[in-house]
C-alpha cells in the first residue's frame, strides 16, 4: 500500500469527475427531478473545488468556504422553486418526463 497523500489535484479531479457525472445525468436522465438532482451534483462539484482551492491556495482566508455556503443556500432556493414548477407541470401534463415538454419549439 503506497503512502497516500491527498493533494489539491485529487480534489480537483474529484470535482471534475463529479461535474462530469452531473453533466452526464443532465443530458441523459429523462425525469425532471433526476435532472434537478444532477444539477445539484454539478453545483457540489463546484463546492468541492471552492473549498479545496480555499484550503490549498488561500489557507488564511475563508473565501472559498464562504462562497460555497452561498452556493449551497442559493441552490436550495433553486431546488425549492424547481420542485414547485415540476409539481405544477405534473398537474398540467401528468408527466415529468422531459421528452414530453416540447410544445415550444422552432
Amino acid at each position, binding site marked *: 500500500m503506497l503512502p497516500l497523500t491527498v493533494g489539491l489535484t485529487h480534489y480537483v479531479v474529484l470535482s471534475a469527475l463529479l461535474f462530469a457525472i452531473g453533466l452526464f445525468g443532465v443530458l441523459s436522465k429523462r425525469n425532471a427531478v433526476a435532472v*434537478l438532482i444532477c*444539477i445539484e451534483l454539478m*453545483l457540489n*462539484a463546484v463546492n468541492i473545488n471552492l473549498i*479545496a482551492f480555499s484550503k490549498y491556495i488561500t489557507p488564511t482566508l475563508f473565501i472559498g468556504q464562504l462562497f460555497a455556503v*452561498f452556493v449551497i443556500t442559493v441552490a436550495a432556493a433553486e431546488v425549492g*422553486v424547481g420542485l414547485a414548477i415540476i409539481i405544477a407541470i405534473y398537474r398540467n401534463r401528468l408527466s415529468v418526463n422531459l421528452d414530453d415538454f416540447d410544445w415550444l419549439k422552432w
Partner: protein
Amino acid sequence: MNVNLSLLAPELFISALGLAVLILGLIVPKDSRHGLGWLTVFGLLLGMGITMAGWENQGTLYGGLFVVDQYAVFFKLTFLVAAFLVVLGSMRYVDMMGDQSEYYSMILFATLGMMVLASAGDFMTLYLGLELMTIAFIVLVCFRRNDVKSVEAGIKYLLLAGVSSAVLLYGLSLVYGLTGTVVIGEVGRALTARPVPALILGLAMLLAGLGFKVSAVPFHMWTPDVYEGAPTPVTAFLAVGSKAASFAVLLRVFIGALPAVWAHWAMLVAVLAAVTIIVGNLVAIPQTNIKRLLAYSSIAQAGYILVGLITATGPGIKAVMFYAFLYVFATVGAFTVVTQYYSVTGSDEIKDYAGLSQRSPLMAAVMVICMLSMAGIPPLAGFVGKFYLFKTIINDYLWLAFIGLIMSMVSVYYYLKVALVMYRDEPADPAPIQLSAPVALTLLIAMIVTIVLGVYPGPLSEATNVAAQSFWR
C-alpha cells in the same frame, strides 16, 4: 467596518419596496390590489430618482465586494427604467392574470438582482445577484401556472439556467483557484497572460455561463422557447433586464478581471458575436409567432452588443451601455404592443396582427418603430447605437462590421413582414382597440425616446461617456 449606506440606498429602497408590495398583497383585499401596480410604478420612479441622485456618489463597499461607480449607476437606471416601463405597460395584463403582489414583487426582486449584478465587485456578489435575478425570473416565467406553455417555459428555464449557473460557477472556481481571490479587480491584477489549461477552461466556462444569460449563440437555445412561453411582460423584462444586467457583469468580469488574456477572448467574442448575429437574424425569418420572432431578434441584438466587448476599451463599454439603454425602449415598446394585443385577441401569431394599423395606429407605429430601431435604421436610436458599436471594431474586425450591418438589413425583412400584416391587411374585427392610459403612456415613451435618441443622441452619449470612464476608476 464603516459602511456608507448611502451607496446602497437604491438597492435598499427597491428591496423594501419589493417586500412592501409582497406584504401589502396579503393585506389588501383582492379587488383593490390593482393599486399595487401604481405603487410599484411610483416606487420605481422614486427608485430612479434615488439612483440618479447618487450619480456623483461613488465608492466601494465591503472591501471591493460591492462597487458603486457611474457605470453601475447607469445600468441600474437602465434596469429601473425597464422595470418601470414593463410594469406600466402590463398592469392591465396582470390584473387579468391575478396574483398582482407576487408579480410586482418578483419584478422588483429581479430588478434588485440586476442592480446587485451591476455593482458586483466580486464573484460572490455576482453569483448572488445573478441567482436572485434568475430565480425571480423563473417564478415569473411560469407565472401563468395553468398555462401549459408557461410552465414548460418555466421548467426549461429552470433547468437550463441551473446548468449554466453550474458551469459559470465552475469557471469562477477555476479562476479563483488560479488567482486566490474572488474580487474582480484583484483577479485582474493577479492574472498573467500565460494561458494555462485551467484558465482556458475557466474562460470558456465564464463565457458560456454569461453567454447563456445574454443568449449568445450557441448558448441561446432556451431563449425562443422561454420567450414564447413566458407571460409577455415577463418576456419583455427578461429580454431587456436580464440581458442588460448580464452584459453589465460580462463587461465587468471580462474587462475588469481578465484583461491579461484579452487577446484570447477577444477573438472568441468576435466569433460568438458574428455567429449570434447570423443565427439570430436568419432563424427569425421563418418565424410565425411574434414572440418567437422577437426572441430571435433579441438573440441577434445580443450579438450586436457583444461587439462592444471585443476591444475592451472605453468606447466599447460606452457603446454597450448606449445600446443597452436604447434597447430597453425598443424591446419594451414592441413587447407592450404584443401584451396589449394578446389581451385583446388572445393570439401571438403574426398573421393575427392583420389590420392593426387601422384598429390602433399608435400600436402599429410603435411596433414598427421599435423593430426598426432594433434593425438599426436611421434616424432611430438603434442606428446610433450600432454606429457606436461598430466604430470600435471597424479597424480590426472589418469582416464583423460587414456581417453585422448586412445582417441588420436582412433583419428588416422579417420586421417588415410584420409591418406588412399590420398595415396592408384588413382587420378581421375592425373595432378600434382602446388603450388604457398607462399602456398608451408606455407606448408613447418607448416611441418618443426611440426617435429622440436616434435624432438627438448627444446627451445620452455624454452620460455614457462619463459612465464608461468610471469603469476603471
